[in-house]
């Protein structure tokens, strides 16, 4: 631990930031740089591992350890690091293509294992780096370079997918909302296992305005269903009520506030968080924002290292000499 408290500047590397002007990645970066000192973790114990994509350039700009790896594989690399080095704090930086397309399998496996990774999924609903093809998060019918007649693929809902994959922490936030982003990072950092944060991120070049519905002053209040643990879930106009095994939206003025669902991020049954995740469609008109789910389950790295330790406690540390001589041996004189 360093004695002097670190500042945002300490976490800023000397590399020139190279995103397009107006890219949402800038504000996430700056929020992260500002947030990291708060963790009280020395820089050298923080590692950012990314895949490939515009957003995956993120690690270069942070003065911590960092690896810009290959497309889709960051969760796998980060798992190896986190498991063998439980002393480190490991972030994964990924895009909607990186995490959900080529890297989908590593993502869901990291989540089910609950490896202690904080995964930031920059969802701009497009392939930015390769200049504008649709991604598994793009809306049905989207016209892109590779779908000039409109895409035919139903997108993933990243939150539903993560919950279906046994995730213990899943949240959603927005690039431009520093406060909300910071609070979400804070909760994720406090979580003991895998944390997946979906960040709606604007790509002004290839998918400009994708999130205007939840960013524009006229529409955002009415669209964002705020999820705060212990608070009723609602936007300025709509609220969430229960209806059978599912959750439904109602206009606020049609119900009494007491009927609204009070958010419980710690509900052990993921069905609740899953139901929340289904409130939003691609059009973002009703978009739950905040932490869907935050439950306790042992972290994978912790379990692996506990298992090692308990075997050593029970059997003593390994003795190479003994190992080589195990089983039937004989002597030649």
């Amino acid at each position, binding site marked *: 631990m360093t004695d002097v408290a670190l500042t945002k500047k300490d976490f800023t590397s000397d590399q020139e930031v190279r995103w397009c002007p107006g890219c949402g990645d800038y504000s996430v970066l700056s929020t992260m740089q500002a947030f990291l000192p708060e963790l009280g973790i*020395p820089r050298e114990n923080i590692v950012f591992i990314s895949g*490939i994509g515009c957003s995956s350039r993120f690690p270069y700009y942070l003065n911590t350890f960092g690896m*810009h790896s290959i497309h889709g594989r960051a969760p796998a690399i980060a798992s190896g690091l986190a498991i*063998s080095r439980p002393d480190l704090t490991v972030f994964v930086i990924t895009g909607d293509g990186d995490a959900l397309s080529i890297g989908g*399998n590593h993502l869901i496996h990291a989540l089910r294992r609950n490896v202690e990774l904080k995964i930031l999924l920059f969802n701009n609903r497009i392939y930015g780096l390769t200049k504008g093809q649709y991604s598994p998060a793009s809306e049905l019918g989207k016209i892109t370079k590779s779908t000039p007649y409109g895409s035919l693929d139903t997108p993933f809902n990243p939150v539903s997918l993560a919950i279906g994959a046994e995730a213990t922490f899943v949240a959603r936030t927005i690039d431009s909302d520093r406060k909300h982003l910071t609070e979400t990072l804070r909760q994720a950092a406090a979580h003991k296992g895998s944390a997946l944060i979906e960040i709606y991120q604007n790509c002004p070049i290839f998918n400009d305005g994708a999130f205007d519905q939840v960013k524009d002053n006229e529409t955002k209040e009415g669209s964002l269903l705020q999820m705060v643990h212990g608070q009723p879930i609602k936007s300025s106009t709509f609220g969430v009520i229960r209806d059978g095994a599912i959750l439904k939206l109602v206009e606020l003025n049609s119900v009494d506030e007491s009927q609204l669902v009070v958010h419980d991020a710690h509900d052990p049954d993921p069905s609740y968080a899953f139901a929340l995740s289904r409130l939003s469609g691609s059009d973002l008109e009703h978009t739950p924002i905040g932490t869907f789910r935050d439950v306790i389950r042992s972290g994978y790295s912790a379990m692996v290292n506990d298992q090692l330790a308990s075997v050593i406690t029970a059997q003593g540390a390994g003795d190479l000499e003994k190992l080589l001589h195990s089983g*039937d041996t004989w002597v030649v004189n």
Partner: protein
Amino acid sequence: MSLMSKPTVAVKSVIIRFAGDSGDGMQLTGDRFTMDTASLGNDISTLPNFPAEIRAPQGTLPGVSSFQLHFADHHVRTAGDAPDVLVAMNPAALKANIKDIPRGATIIVDKDEFTTRNLTKVGYQTNPLEDGTLSSYKIHPVALTSMTVSALSELPLSRKEAERAKNMFALGLLSWMYHRPTDATEAFLKAKFAKKPDILEANLIAYRTGWNYGETSEDFATSYEVAPAHMPPGIYRNIGGNIALSYGLIAASQQSGLKLFLGSYPITPASDILHELSKHKKFGVITFQAEDEIAAVGSALGASYGGALGVTTTSGPGIALKSEMIGLGVMLELPLIIIDVQRGGPSTGLPTKTEQADLLQVMFGRNGESPAAVIAASTPSDCFTMAMEAVRIATTYRVPVFLLSDGYIANGSEPWMIPDVATLPKFDIDFAKSQENFLPYERNPETLARPWAIPGTAGIEHRIGGIEKQDKTGEINYEPANHDFMVRTRQAKIDGIEVPDIEVDDLTGDAKVLFLGWGSTYGPIASAVEELRNNGEKIAQAHLKYINPFPKNLGAVLEKYETVITPEMNLGQLAMLLRSKYLKDIVGYNMVRGLPFTTAELVEAAMGVLHND
């Protein structure tokens, strides 16, 4: 069980093949016979032959599993071409193996299994035990099943359970025939079935009954003795390739102080390394069964980045999947060990069979100029040494290292003089220290290695990645000259790896023909060379364990010989590398049958060259 009432004949070497249904326990039987034989001081070589990877119906040809064992009063190099004894537990085992058995050999069969039903199953029209087709063999039809069952009639066992012990009857019989000591196997059984006293009892009784049957039955007139081999003094154990490899990795971890991290995905014939290493948690070994091969090698690379000894194990199809990630390893210049236990290919190929056809894949199967070190183990016990060598190279030069093994040495076994731990090499690992103006790609001028700069070290925070990097700083760099320089530097680093010279065994110093092999062809080649020399031929032998880079003296060695024959279980992959590098016309001897070479065919091949057929 000591009084010998029958004549004993001394022989110099014996090859026994145990064959039966997958469920008959032939591997265990073979293993036990091997152990008892080893402890007598014979030299040994073993070779299991598994059926195809899925269990075939009982009693059918694809279901036959066998185990061959060669033991002698002298040094043996292979499990032998032609068995002296075949133990066939059913008609399928007989049928599947008879073509390998030379006339005059001994065949012991369980005659109880030669029912019409079982015979028809494998296409025997008449009973070979009766129709005279086996007349040129010494055939012993033994009522193995029924004698076992009746010996166990007192025990509270079902018939099925009782029948299961028949392999112990067979083992007992063979133990008698070859004067093997019985106490180790009895001890083994006691440990194995400690919790199942009935089963233990059954096995012990069956074993002893088998022994007694040999001693008393008139069918077995002679027993045999094989004198101990002259082996260097020391403590020995029998060891298979996958176990030796696992031990080598643990040893390297201990000798380097690095935590061993295995990221792996199961695949035949490499899975046993994962199984073995997962047992050794007390050595701090972490085994991570990843979701696929990409994640397996990715996690190993992540662990390496964190300062562990990152290892991944697989076979050919897994290497194909790992190749992109290994390319990242090349770029990151981190230690990474990739073990390829080769099997028959291409594609799924012949998963349970051996082959050497991944050499060019590991050399070149990555995009761009992406050099990595490649070394190969030559025998089961050599896997121990080469695993440590892989670690030496990876940690010294900070490069991905491929260690090639194959199904033959992975599953085969041989006696191994257990090395003194004190004499094992120590690896000094120097992680980068806290410092100012740290340059992550500044190189050690001798090794060209960059610093191993692990998270947790204050002051050297830095970023690396798969995009081309600027010399020294490691920052992203697109400059043409820098790229060319870095490409050449990565190549130079591999080219500069220090590896021992290749040794040539040229008894008289004037042989004109050199047998040059690599990997698991060592045994068959050495055996062929021995036989050729016994026949008065002059032939030299050399074996390549370091393939990228080649030993420095290799060019000179090749030049010295008029003809170089390279037997490979592929279509000529090493030959291609040698031809290209040294412009020397290598004579390939290539068979891609999923099987090791026989001594005989290599002798014949050499004779062709020696006498210009």
